[in-house]
């Protein structure tokens, strides 16, 4: 760790110092005890950058697409941040994070900050720290910030609530999977990218997507659909202009602030509440495992422990 205090680190982050930004990202990722303090000092940046979420099944070409977007925005002198989340193995806790592989052209560009994260057991395709990590990149004046995550089911609705704009990337050959996805995922994408459009099956894919979109209830926003091939660059022009228009629209709307703060506050309450309740359990029983032993031996139940925690918190409130 750098021998500097959180206040100094916060200063350096806002100046965009690479090492400081990287260290700050690790602090939030590791749940460092001063992470809250750091994020508090950077809260002014909470709304300052556009968050662009990119999700889709493995192998859909998300990272290649991100590479194309980086090129587009760098040509326009935007400083772009990327947070690429890959799944952590539930068995070993390890992860191979390979999204950089497709973004090599930007590896030594100081105007691009790419950070790979393991999902570390967090459900929903994102890492628990993604939101906080995005805030740190925003404080370092990266705008837009791309959040890339694998998603095949309904769990990644989370990315839509976090990002200002969400791109859903699909490819031919998914077959009936598109049918399975339609209920949830079709409603979260602002832009549906039909990637690898040079492959057979693209017409069927588009037909299936359009059929799903027709089921979106009236009054709800309908996502735009664009065909492209991220690896050849075909269709990227249309995609980037659609995306830039969506970003401009989202910036002008500026309406999601209240719900964003609600989401943030709720998750802070959940985290702090869980930590506090966990420490009360540990104080009462010695440890979580000892509490489980008590339940197993029939001395108490999880619900009784819950009631006990409630009682302790209430007494604390009154006192």
């Amino acid at each position, binding site marked *: 760790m750098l021998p500097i205090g959180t206040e100094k680190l916060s200063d350096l982050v806002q100046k965009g110092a690479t090492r400081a930004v990287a260290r700050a990202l690790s602090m939030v990722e590791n749940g460092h005890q001063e992470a809250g303090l750091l994020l508090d000092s950077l809260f002014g940046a909470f709304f300052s950058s556009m968050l662009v979420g990119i999700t889709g099944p493995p192998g859909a070409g998300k990272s290649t697409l991100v590479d194309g977007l980086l090129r587009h925005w760098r040509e326009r002198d935007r400083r772009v941040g990327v947070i690429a989340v890959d799944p952590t193995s539930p068995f070993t806790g390890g992860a191979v994070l390979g999204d950089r592989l497709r973004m090599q052209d930007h590896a030594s560009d100081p105007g691009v900050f790419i950070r*790979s994260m393991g999902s570390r057991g967090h459900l929903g395709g994102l890492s628990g720290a993604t939101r906080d990590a995005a805030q740190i990149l925003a404080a370092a004046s990266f705008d837009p910030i791309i959040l890339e995550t694998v998603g095949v089911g309904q769990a990644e609705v989370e990315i839509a609530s976090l990002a200002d704009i969400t791109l859903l990337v699909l490819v031919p050959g998914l077959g009936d999977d598109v049918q399975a996805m339609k209920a949830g995922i079709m409603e979260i994408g602002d832009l549906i990218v039909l990637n690898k459009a040079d492959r057979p099956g693209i017409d069927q894919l588009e037909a299936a997507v359009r059929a799903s979109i027709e089921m979106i209830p009236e009054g709800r926003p309908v996502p735009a659909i664009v065909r492209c091939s991220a690896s050849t660059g075909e269709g990227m022009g249309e995609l980037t202009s659609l995306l830039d228009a969506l970003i401009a629209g989202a910036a002008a709307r500026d309406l999601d602030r209240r719900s964003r703060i609600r989401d943030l506050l709720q998750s802070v309450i959940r985290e702090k509440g869980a930590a506090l309740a966990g420490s009360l359990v540990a104080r009462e029983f010695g440890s979580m495992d000892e509490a489980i032993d008590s339940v197993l031996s029939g001395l108490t139940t999880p619900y009784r422990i819950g009631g006990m925690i409630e009682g302790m918190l209430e007494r604390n409130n009154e006192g």
Partner: protein
Amino acid sequence: MDRKIRVLIGKPGLDGHDRGAKYIARALRDAGMEVVYTGIRQTPEAIANAAVQEDADFVGLSLLSGAHNHLFPEVARLLKEMHAEDIILFGGGVIPEEDIPGLKEAGFRAIFTPGTPSSEVVDFIKKEFTS
């Protein structure tokens, strides 16, 4: 605090053979580490920059082309330039015995030659991380 060991595996230079690099990446993952793999044909600048952005605890370089005496020390130099000399370096690949002292001099804590069991790399990292 949920601190995980982060290792960046990089392949500098023109050699495109990354079986060894991927083998080590998987072994480190299976040992519970987070491994960032940069892909083949990276410049030393790209690797050093990625190591800093990723806040890697370790950087492992793999090279089979014979250019290690130039490329490995260059990554070490760039990391120092970026005030990231606390990142622990190790290397692997087809590296003659007689080149190893020079690479250690340049800041590489360990050099693993062909045939090294992956567990040896895992043990090296775990030991260096706690010390």
